[in-house]
């Protein structure tokens, strides 16, 4: 496919074209907005926008460029944010009716950093309600659709963030990853998604789901774009007590296309639970790493089913606590106000939370209740310790672990009606989340039906540079085009 249209550019290409004067930020932004107008009715990625503000921000960037006063490599680059990020410019709702029309008085740190470096906000993106889901089907706006096949899911919860990048609505976006919510949609949509080390990026101003697991993650069409975004948003934030004191690095400046000296662990037994297409893609990726000079080493990893079980205990417990603040008093609309305070709170939460959110709140309440706290919550924390230690032991022997991101390629919308089968789609992403480790998904190839298949690399804590280097070498060796054909769209690309 021709790569000469601005909305098909990677983040680095957009930066280069802006620097060369081939295009202005206003023209680039306009191209992204036109792309949205063309596709959003079908794909449902963008849930809030202000086109005039975006174009004004782009024009301001063009003025800075003329004066030689650029704020950074992202100056003038259109980006979009998952609806979990608080923004003063646009409403923030976590795609929930309980936060309808909520507008924050301050910006999330990750967005503030992008804005201070000149990035242009072209919209807030669809997601599962409060990031609870793996298919984007729990959003109050309805699901977004996969640009590779509109009958299939973009994944979740950052489905809009992955789909918008894949379809060319923006060259980069931010999502959040609690148990795989950046990596799984990245795999389904054929883009690159990174979950940094827990604490690497500030969570201030990101709506909380499960605070000990939530982490901000960038998505882009290639590894370099992901690295550029991480460079922009990483670093300590005194407003987030879990933010680590390590400064940001310029990750995109150290991406050699060889993997010599890297040891890559491959967990063959994990592949038993994956589809044949996924197994073949991971094995091909391992061979590609070897072709770039990496040394492969078989490794044995903890049972991912145990990780999924512990994750849903902990995440639901934390969610039930975090979401207690949505009571109709401080945020959003109210229901049953005429019935007194207690009934107003019960009806507001009952009528405005979606089914999946209520399910997780009740599960979390159960896990934290007297008689079950030790049996589930404390036990799950011990399982988390056990899994983290095992992963750290493996990573003492290898630089990164290569495996599948998901057991299957993108599934059809509505294909997983019961919650447990949906939860199991995060089988391979949850262990790194529990251990707080950085992990990245990139496109490893395509299955027989033409859908992208993601491969996951898990790195050592705070070693995002090594992780991105390994991913870049793999991306170079595979040499895949990540642009969806959009054959099933009304107006193909």
């Amino acid at each position: 496919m021709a790569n000469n249209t601005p909305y098909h550019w990677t983040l680095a290409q957009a930066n280069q074209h802006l620097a060369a004067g081939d295009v202005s930020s206003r023209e680039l932004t306009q191209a992204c907005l036109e792309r949205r107008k063309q596709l959003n009715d079908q794909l449902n990625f963008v849930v809030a926008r202000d086109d005039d503000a975006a174009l004004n921000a782009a024009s301001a960037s063009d003025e800075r460029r003329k004066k030689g006063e650029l704020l950074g490599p992202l100056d003038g680059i259109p980006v979009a944010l998952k609806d979990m990020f608080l923004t003063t410019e646009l409403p923030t709702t976590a795609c929930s009716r309980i936060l309808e029309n909520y507008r924050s008085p301050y910006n999330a740190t990750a967005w503030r950093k992008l804005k201070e470096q000149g990035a242009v906000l072209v919209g807030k993106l669809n997601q599962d309600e409060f990031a609870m889901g793996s298919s984007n089907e729990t959003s109050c706006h309805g699901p977004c659709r996969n640009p590779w096949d509109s009958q299939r899911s973009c994944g979740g919860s950052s489905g809009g963030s992955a789909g918008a990048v894949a379809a060319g609505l923006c060259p980069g976006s931010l999502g959040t990853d609690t148990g795989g919510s950046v990596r799984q949609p990245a795999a389904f949509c054929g883009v690159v998604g990174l979950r940094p080390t827990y604490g690497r990026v500030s969570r201030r101003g990101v709506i909380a789901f499960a605070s000990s697991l939530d982490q901000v993650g960038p998505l882009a069409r290639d590894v370099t774009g992901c690295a550029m975004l991480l460079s922009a948003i990483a670093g300590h934030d005194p407003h987030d007590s879990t933010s680590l004191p390590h400064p940001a690095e310029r990750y995109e400046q150290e991406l050699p296309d060889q993997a010599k000296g890297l040891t890559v662990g491959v967990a063959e037994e994990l592949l038993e639970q994956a589809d044949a297409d996924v197994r073949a893609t991971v094995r091909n990726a391992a061979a590609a790493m070897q072709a770039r000079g990496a040394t492969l080493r078989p490794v044995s990893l903890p049972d991912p089913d145990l990780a999924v079980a512990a994750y849903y205990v902990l995440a639901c417990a934390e969610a039930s606590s975090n979401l207690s603040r949505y009571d109709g008093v401080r945020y959003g609309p109210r229901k049953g106000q005429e019935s007194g305070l207690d009934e107003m709170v019960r009806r507001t939460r009952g009528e405005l939370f979606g089914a999946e959110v209520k399910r997780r709140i009740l599960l979390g309440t159960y896990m934290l209740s007297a008689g079950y706290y030790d049996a589930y919550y404390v036990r799950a924390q011990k399982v988390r310790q056990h899994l983290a230690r095992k992963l750290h032991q493996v990573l003492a022997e290898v630089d990164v672990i290569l495996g599948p991101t998901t057991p299957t390629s993108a599934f059809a919308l509505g294909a997983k009606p019961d919650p447990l089968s949906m939860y199991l789609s995060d089988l391979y992403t949850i262990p790194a989340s529990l251990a707080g480790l950085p992990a990245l998904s990139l496109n490893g190839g395509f299955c027989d039906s033409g859908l992208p298949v993601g491969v996951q690399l898990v790195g050592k804590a705070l070693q995002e540079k090594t992780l991105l280097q390994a991913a870049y070498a793999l991306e170079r060796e595979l040499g895949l085009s990540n642009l969806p054909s959009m054959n099933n769209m009304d107006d193909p690309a």
Partner: protein
Amino acid sequence: MRQGKSTTMPFSDHDIAKLADLAKVALSQEEREQLKLDLTQIVGYVKRIRQASLDKLSPMTNDARHMQLPLRNDDALESPPGRRCIEDSAGYKDGLVEVPAILPPQSRKED
């Protein structure tokens, strides 16, 4: 609540009502029926964490590596200016944070 009983037992109407009450969530009868099935299935899956051998491990709350939690002297510090404290609020007027009324005016009169 079914304290101490086996988690393999299905959730009852009473269990769901109790959890909904604790979580302050109003549920329809249809939702209660569905939640009985869902929670029974999910808890049946997650109970596998009770089978793992983990006796010597301490619980792990999060993994913020090298996080510093420095202690400071027990000195009373001057509070930041009130205006600084409320400037992140949705609105403030005359030094006070503005919030929506919790109950309609009529209810407040009755109180």
